[in-house]
């Protein structure tokens, strides 16, 4: 009984922290429809700013409260600045591009924090009042946890008052339901959006500041926090404050018990819960189906097969790529091998994301499953290169078929989050199942024997399989299957009215994309000679997203251009100091300059050029 109560209280305390971050995220999404990847960065900034302020103040409760409030205000100001400088320019852009821009911000903030606060974890020295305990039902319980338990409901209450008792709150609720109508009624959207973003950022900062006494400010907290916050928001229902609170309670408490009762699967537990909720309630606990924002109904660009000029350019690049090993040095050859692999990885995501209309935040799962399948084929089965390369797409494709059955019935952000949930589960399995996967140490010594030992041979193999695979995917997109798939994306209503079975088509696309990504993972495993859980981690999924969006999701050449550009950029910047900052800034600038991606911008320029021809 004592154990039960103690774990429950601990769970409630962490639920409060979760709620603070998730509340900001859900409010921002509800009004602006921006999926703010940088929300965790605002939380991290909150922790760092709180450290800077609190370590300079006297250590009394009053000064602590003041410092925390000041931190919230400071992050709110940063949020407002972010909205005015960047996101405001992107509301008309496709939803996913905003995600990409905010990911750029994540990178920038990471290095900015590193530069400003240094690489060491920063903790405040806790005064006695913070370390004290109180007695609840005869149990000694940390005082600060009790404070946290109170803060969550208090903030929920204040927010509900704000939303239901003020004119501003009325506008926010109206905009959450139908922002175009609110704009048509003459409401100044700019001010509304900026203030909502500032509020959300302030809540994230508050969460970061309040988390400081229990841990430290560090550079890893941004992605960890934003993943948890996404889960809470999605489980609760995007845009629903009450839902976020319920979901935070559910997950906080579940985690508290899970750590004790099922320590082996703690990493998986949260995502299992999310997957279960989404399968039962596709719009979260309290969420409603999203109304399509009318103004965002972007005209879908017509997709045409490559013209003679583009075909010639493609063939020329391919010839250059094939001749590359005779010209470039070993380092550049490694980069080019990675670029070839990235091309297939990105093209496979593009298949489901562009023509399939299913954006995935967890595409690295298939890459990783392919890589591990290749490793098992080599280590456990004693198979050669060919066995691994055959087994990998089979394994990843079969897995994708199973997971896809749940996924393809959803849409939009919910679909993306379910793929993320699965990727996190796969990652956690590879990380925690040490006996089989080697855990963090990975599986080493996968170098192929014989002819493929030569890096040049490996490069040509990667080029043949990956670029060949990407071209095959492209072929599929122009074949009847691709047209049918695109039809279900363009107009689900019409697709059903001409006899197309949308779930089956989407499932097939999902499995094909999974198999192709699995193949790219296997090639990567052999090229690197090893596999690690990081292959399935969020940053790797984001790599694929960046490549596709950078290239342009509405063009067929996009993923190829984007993958090559991103790989080359990354490896070029990787050697320099503060490369994240530069890469992030570059992503942000590219998004602002080319909302249609590089290939999209090139296609538009080419069309303009042709129009001036006689």
């Amino acid at each position, binding site marked *: 009984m004592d154990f039960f109560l103690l774990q429950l209280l601990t769970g409630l305390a962490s639920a409060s922290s979760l709620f603070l971050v998730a509340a900001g995220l859900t409010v921002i999404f509800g009004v602006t429809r921006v999926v703010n990847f940088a929300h965790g960065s605002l939380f991290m900034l909150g922790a760092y700013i709180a450290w800077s302020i609190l370590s300079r103040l006297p250590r009394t409760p009053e000064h602590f409260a003041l410092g925390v409030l000041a931190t919230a205000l400071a992050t709110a100001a940063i949020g407002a600045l972010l909205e005015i400088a960047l996101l405001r320019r992107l509301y008309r852009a496709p939803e996913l591009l905003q995600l990409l821009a905010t990911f750029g911000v994540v990178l920038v903030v990471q290095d900015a924090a590193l530069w400003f606060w240094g690489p060491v974890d920063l903790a405040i020295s806790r005064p006695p009042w913070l370390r004290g305990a109180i007695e609840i039902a005869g149990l000694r319980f940390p005082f600060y946890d009790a404070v946290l338990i109170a803060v969550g409901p208090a903030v929920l209450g204040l927010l509900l008052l704000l939303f239901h008792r003020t004119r501003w709150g009325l506008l926010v609720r109206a905009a959450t339901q139908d922002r175009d109508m609110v704009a048509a009624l003459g409401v100044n959207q700019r001010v509304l959006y900026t203030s909502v973003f500032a509020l959300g950022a302030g809540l994230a900062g508050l969460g970061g500041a309040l988390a400081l006494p229990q841990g430290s400010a560090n550079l890893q907290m941004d992605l960890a926090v934003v993943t948890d916050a996404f889960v809470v928001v999605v489980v609760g229902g995007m845009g629903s404050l009450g839902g976020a609170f319920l979901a935070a309670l559910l997950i906080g408490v579940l985690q508290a018990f899970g750590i004790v009762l099922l320590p082996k699967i703690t990493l998986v537990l949260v995502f299992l819960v999310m997957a279960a909720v989404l399968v039962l309630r596709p719009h979260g606990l309290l969420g409603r189906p999203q109304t399509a924002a009318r103004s965002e109904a972007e005209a879908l660009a017509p997709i045409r097969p490559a013209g003679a000029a583009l075909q010639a350019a493609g063939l020329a690049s391919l010839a250059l790529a094939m001749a590359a090993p005779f010209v470039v040095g070993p380092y550049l050859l490694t980069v080019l091998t990675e670029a070839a692999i990235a091309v297939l990885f990105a093209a496979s995501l593009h298949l489901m994301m562009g023509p399939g209309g299913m954006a995935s935040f967890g595409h690295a799962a298939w890459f990783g499953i392919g890589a591990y399948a290749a490793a098992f084929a080599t280590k456990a089965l004693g198979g050669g290169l060919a066995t691994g390369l055959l087994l990998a797409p089979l394994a990843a494709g079969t897995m994708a078929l199973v997971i896809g059955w749940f996924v393809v019935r959803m849409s939009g952000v919910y679909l993306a989050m379910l793929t993320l949930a699965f990727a996190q589960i796969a990652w956690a399995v590879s990380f925690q199942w040490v006996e089989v996967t080697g855990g963090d140490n990975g599986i080493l010594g996968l170098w192929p024997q014989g002819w493929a030992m030569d890096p040049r041979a490996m490069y040509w193999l990667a080029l043949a399989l990956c670029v060949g695979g990407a071209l095959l995917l492209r072929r599929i997109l122009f074949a009847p299957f691709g047209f049918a798939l695109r039809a279900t994306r363009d107009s689900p209503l019409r697709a059903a*009215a*001409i*006899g197309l079975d949308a779930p089956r088509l989407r499932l097939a696309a999902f499995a094909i994309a999974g198999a192709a990504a699995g193949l790219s993972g296997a090639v990567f495993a052999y090229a690197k000679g090893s596999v690690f859980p990081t292959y399935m981690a969020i940053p790797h999924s984001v790599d694929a997203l960046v490549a596709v969006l950078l290239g342009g999701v509405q063009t067929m050449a996009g993923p190829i251009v984007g993958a090559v550009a991103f790989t080359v950029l990354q490896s070029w910047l990787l050697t320099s100091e503060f490369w994240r900052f530069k890469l992030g800034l570059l992503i942000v600038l590219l998004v602002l300059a080319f909302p249609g991606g590089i290939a999209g911008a090139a296609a538009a320029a080419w069309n303009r050029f042709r129009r001036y021809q006689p």
Partner: protein
Amino acid sequence: MSTLEVRDLRKSFGAIDAVAGLSFTLAPGEMLAVIGPNGAGKSTCFNMLNGQLRPDAGKILLAGPNGTMQDITGLPPREIWRLGVGRTFQITATFASMTVRENVQTALLSHHRRTWRFWRPANRHAGPEADRLLARVGMQSQADRPAGILAYGDLKRLELAIALANAPRLLLMDEPTAGMAPAERTALMTLTRDIARTEGVAVLFTEHDMDVVFGVADRILVLNRGHLIAEGPPAEIRENPEIRAVYLGAHI
């Protein structure tokens, strides 16, 4: 012999009986208009016929190729389409990322059961057949334009071409002329009537423009609050005093 037979169809949403016991038949080549004020149950009726909504009660029977009546009640839209029912939507639904011809080709691919092919380019499939359908609705000159940039009236005509791709025996048209200019409206519906006559297609349509309704319909169903309040040829409906009161207004 009839193409469509509807028996005592019912659908309620909560306490509201959207369609409360509707029965009618539709013959091959016949143009049947469903009219009624907003909330009369026209759209609900349509959505049950094409499978988007499952009826609470009643039967929908469709003539098969050999003339036997088949129960299609509650089948999903794509199976109803397979059985020979084409439809157009109130708000046009076409594939914006494809050209006009590719839109029709996609429908033909599905009709010919060639959807699950992964190699041969789709736009080489049944080009002449697609062009014939486009010529039929007067859209051949725009075959290579992206559907996303068409004028609204042209989109409506493209929809008709798509709806004809499976050589339907029954055509369901929900407000086919909404948003079109008056001259275009009559042209589209006259064209539809020609197709109905020459190919024996039964056409069921809803329409708010009374000039169109009385101009092309062979028979009219009048719905009000889910009930069928009158049925008959245009001349009869026009003279019915009850209908004048609830719907048409005295000025007609």
